[in-house]
């Protein structure tokens, strides 16, 4: 650290042996990996949103056509649990890389666009209609969350 403070940091480097330089490079790589591993927290955030959508989709799919009080309560409970989980994960984020943030926001934007498209198609094709079975909603939700799943998996596998 200290050597980099000085402007002659680069000219300091030739004093190192090849072995020392390789060790320094290896350490730099290891430090970068520590940050990339921390990007997994962003992946968990995406998976929380995915879980709440899938949960709500499953509850509505299993509910009778005209809805039920329990389904509404279950969805609200899941939303509250998701908010709590997101806050807890948010507090655990202690570092993030530019790549991690780009993946995170790209997944959120892609999800919003894709989900809007899936919803529109479901309505326009009457896949969602009062005379259709409830599980059609669940199917659309499962398709709609694909970008979140991809984003969560990519961020979860960062090394």
């Amino acid at each position: 650290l200290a050597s980099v403070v000085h402007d002659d940091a680069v000219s300091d480097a030739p004093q190192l042996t090849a072995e020392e330089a390789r060790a320094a490079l290896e350490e730099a790589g290891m430090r970068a990996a520590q940050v990339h591993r921390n990007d997994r927290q962003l992946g968990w955030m995406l998976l929380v949103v995915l879980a709440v959508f899938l949960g709500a989709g499953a509850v509505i799919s299993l509910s009778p056509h005209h809805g039920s009080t329990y389904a509404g309560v279950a969805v609200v409970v899941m939303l509250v649990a998701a908010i709590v989980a997101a806050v807890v994960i948010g507090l655990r984020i202690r570092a993030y890389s530019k790549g991690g943030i780009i993946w995170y926001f790209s997944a959120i934007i892609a999800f919003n666009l894709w989900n809007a498209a899936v919803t529109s198609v479901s309505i326009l094709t009457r896949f969602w209609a009062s005379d259709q079975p409830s599980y059609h909603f669940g199917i659309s939700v499962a398709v709609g969350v694909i970008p979140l799943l991809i984003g969560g998996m990519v961020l979860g596998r960062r090394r």
Partner: protein
Amino acid sequence: MALLAAADRAEFGFVRDHIEVSDSVLSKQMSALEEAGYVKVHKGYVGRRPRTWLSLTRQGRQTFGRHLAALREIAS
């Protein structure tokens, strides 16, 4: 520097824990790097907890990049 180069931002405690130094040692290093124009210190709050975030400046990234390039040259 390597840790901060990989991060867009990193919390002070995260850097301290990973490079295994005390608060005061890291604080001194960061002050020196900030003075040299290589590091930016962002202070804020998460709820009531004060948090300090660190990031490399453009100059810091360029210098570290040159440093890595020099290391690669020696290692090859």
